[in-house]
Every structure is written in C-alpha cells, then in structure tokens.
C-alpha cells in the first residue's frame, strides 16, 4: 500500500464542499471518482409520513475519526487500485436537504472497484462510527438508534 496516497477523514461542523474534497483526492493519474452523499430528509415515507424539522448530530469525535481511518484502510485492503479516499461526516444541527456525509474514492479508471468501495464505505460508517442523531420534528424529539449490534472483532 503506497503511503503517499491521500486519505481525508474528518468529523466536522463545517458544510461539505464536494468540489474541494474531490480535488484533494484527484492525482495526476486519476481518471474516475465514485461518491456517496447522504442528506437530511425533511419528509420520510415509512409506515406513514414523518416530518423532520432538523437533525442534531453528535459524535465521539476522537474515536469516530479513528474509526473513519480504519474504514479507509479496509477499503484499501479490499480494492488495491484505490488512489484517494475521503470520508467526512458533518455534525451539529442539520436541516432538511443538507448533505451530512461524503464518502468518495478515486482510481485511474472506473472499472477498479470505486463504486463498490464507496458503497462499502458508507455501509461501514453506518455500522461502526460512533455518531448519533437526534431527530427534532413537530411531534417532539427523539434519538435515532442504529440497528447494528457489533460482533466481536469489529
């Protein structure tokens, strides 16, 4: 694994700047990037319709950044052609239609696993990164709990 390949992981209260972040992982040899972004839903259709006024994201920041780095390492182990990786989780009070996370990875060509790697990255973020969100809406506020219970070794 080359050590000079860019890996950017961060828990931040700042807005996500996709163009800037993508530029950070675009090398002279880069030809392809796959990205995933999640947003706050203002309206959720799921056994009825729920309105969300905002989400309040909280992180165990130092551990969360360490786990993001672990996920980036897992991506590199599984997809050896990856060049740059970005995993940035935004925290704080986030309103509907605001991007909350970016998982992005680059490679020389698109048939190198970039799509699978980005998908793996967001799946792992939702499984193991210590971040929680409280949903605030017209019917009050409640913490959203993940469904993933860690197995030993994760």
């Amino acid at each position, binding site marked *: 694994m080359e050590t000079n390949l860019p890996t950017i992981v961060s828990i931040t209260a700042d807005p996500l700047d996709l163009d800037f972040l993508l530029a950070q992982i675009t090398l002279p040899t880069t030809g392809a990037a796959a990205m995933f972004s999640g947003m706050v839903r203002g309206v959720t259709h799921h056994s009825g319709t729920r309105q969300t006024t905002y989400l309040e994201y909280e992180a165990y920041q130092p551990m969360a950044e360490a786990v993001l780095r672990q996920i980036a390492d897992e991506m590199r182990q599984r997809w050896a052609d990856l060049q740059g990786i970005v995993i940035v989780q935004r925290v704080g009070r986030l309103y509907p239609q605001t991007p909350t*996370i970016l998982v992005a990875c680059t490679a020389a060509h698109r048939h190198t696993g970039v799509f699978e790697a980005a998908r793996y990255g967001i799946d792992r973020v939702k499984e193991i990164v210590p971040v929680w969100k409280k949903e605030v809406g017209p019917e009050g506020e409640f*913490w959203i709990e993940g469904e993933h219970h860690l197995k030993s070794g994760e």
Partner: protein
Amino acid sequence: MNRVTILLFATLRDYVGARSLELEIPVGTTIQGLTETLVKTYPRLEKVKDSMMAAINRSYAADEQVIPENAEIAFFPPVSGG
C-alpha cells in the same frame, strides 16, 4: 483502585444525566462489571444495557475485557451516523 473517565453519549447521557463521570473502580474490573455498577446507580440504564456498546481508550471493547489503569471508557447506544 483504578481511576477512570466514563463518557456517555446520546440516550445514555440522558439516562445518566451527565456527559462524563470520574469513577474509582477495583483493579481487574471488566466492561461487564462496570456496566452492572452503572446500572445499579442509574436504574434507567436497565432497559438499554443489552444494546449498550463500550469502548476503552477509543477502541471498541467486549464485555469481558479488563479495564486498564486511567482508561477513557465510553458507553453509547448503537450508532446512527451517515
């Protein structure tokens, strides 16, 4: 005795009523032992203790893991980031 810092997140913070605790625990205490101690002191944790996750010094820790000296322990519910 071993002096440890305990960090609490999300629902657990609400149930305990604090972001962090400083505790003296017996040397050799495991995560499971500390969990039981906390549940006794903060009974509202009882209903979530089976889904509580723990970290020692910013790494996930299993129930049987022994807590080292001056550790930073964290307890939290299943994560929900992204």
